[in-house]
């Protein structure tokens, strides 16, 4: 069943320029992500990472160049269809506060018109997949811990089994222990799912743990785009600056 018919990338940025009120946020961005690959966009705040994500699911449209998803320009996609095919996870889950966990996870299956039984089966499957007690299904987001909310956010994004998953600082609001747990679980999950994943973070350790490839962004450009193991050896000054920022004082080693 694998052996996809083509090696066409799942997501492609082709010389993309994006400006907002005349201010360029992305300049000449070229990137591609193939099915099964995890690309981490690493960079500081304001470097254009989130803008890049929003260009993938058509929340933003490029001013120049083209973003292609499954081979088709986002300008040709029906935006609603496109977004339902892309799972989106944001910081702190972005859950609907007035829906239970179950209803939150079921948002896309419901609007896609799945029948009730299928939805219920899927919700319980997903709760198990992200390591949540099925008893939490009837709780509201405010009754969950931050880590649990984030797990629900991941389950919700996976609900209709989209081929592409995009995550924006998904684990950044969590305490360090929960965060490290979620990172490891996510990595294991991705090894099974083999989706095309774009993960935005400003945390180098997280990037190295999750990425197949890392694109380091600065001022709306990709500075380097390397395999994760190459990245940890790169002598590019900005990459070194990043490594130094995350290496901590020598006495703690």
């Amino acid at each position: 069943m694998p052996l996809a018919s083509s090696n066409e990338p799942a997501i492609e940025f082709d010389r993309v320029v994006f400006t907002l009120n005349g201010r360029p946020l992305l300049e000449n961005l070229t990137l591609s992500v193939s099915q099964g690959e995890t690309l981490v966009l690493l960079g500081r705040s304001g470097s254009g990472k989130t803008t890049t994500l929003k260009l993938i699911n058509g929340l933003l449209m490029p001013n120049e160049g083209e973003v292609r998803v499954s081979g088709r320009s986002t300008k040709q996609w029906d935006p609603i269809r496109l977004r339902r095919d892309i799972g989106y996870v944001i910081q702190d889950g972005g859950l609907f506060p007035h829906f239970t966990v179950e209803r939150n996870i079921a948002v896309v299956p419901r609007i896609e018109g799945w029948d009730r039984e299928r939805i219920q089966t899927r919700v319980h499957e997903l709760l198990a997949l992200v390591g949540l007690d099925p008893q939490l299904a009837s709780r509201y987001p405010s009754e969950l811990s931050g880590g649990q909310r984030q797990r629900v956010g991941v389950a919700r994004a996976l609900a209709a089994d989209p081929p592409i998953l995009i995550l924006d600082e998904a684990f950044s609001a969590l305490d360090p222990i929960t965060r490290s747990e979620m990172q490891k679980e996510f990595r294991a999950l991705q090894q099974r799912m083999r989706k095309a994943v774009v993960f935005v973070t400003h945390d180098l350790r997280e990037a190295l743990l999750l990425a197949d490839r890392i694109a380091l962004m600065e001022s709306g450009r990709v500075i380097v785009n390397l395999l994760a193991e190459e990245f940890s050896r790169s002598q590019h000054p900005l990459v070194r600056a990043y490594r130094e920022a995350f290496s901590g004082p020598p006495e703690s080693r």
Partner: protein
Amino acid sequence: MNFLHFMSANRQQVFELTLEHITLAGVGTLIAALVGIPLGIVITRIPSLSKPILGGANIIQTIPSLALFGFLIPAPWIGDRASRLAILALALYGLLPLIRNTYAGIRGVDPAVVEAGRAMGLTDRQLLFQVELPLASGVIVAGLRIAAVLSIGLATIAAAIGAGGLGEFIFRGLAMVNNQVILAGAVPAALLALAADFLLGLLERRLNSLRLRS
């Protein structure tokens, strides 16, 4: 408490005028909601309309009620019956709190939640009915509560144009210089306003707990 004797002696009329009063204020508020809530939604979608619409509703509020009743008399069909006229005037007064609260309620929904909904592929309609309106409902009901209380109070003036309601007692009492008669109109009207305020307040708190769950 002599007005209680007056009321029990005239209980049939007190009952009828109270019903009339509830009808005037209730229908007026209902129309205000049916027009004001959609208008409030429209101005969240078309921001350029928000100033003229909110400004217009604001101006209506500043027109003294007796003058507004007077202005509306020449209106065709409406002007034929005093009760229609009164209901229209009450509906106009109720517009501002409903438009403003609907607008503020929707604008106040956490933008991250709205964006998450959009990113998941909800259509504008689904976003409005499944996310924005439920989360704004507490604020919208707060507007409804203001409109209802306002309308119950103003409806007493409707008696001046012969539309009936508890204002009949008040105006009659004023003419007779008889406080008992005035109180027979004023006290039930005040109780109606308190009851509406209390009941809608309960609903408001219930709906707000949805939003505060976040």
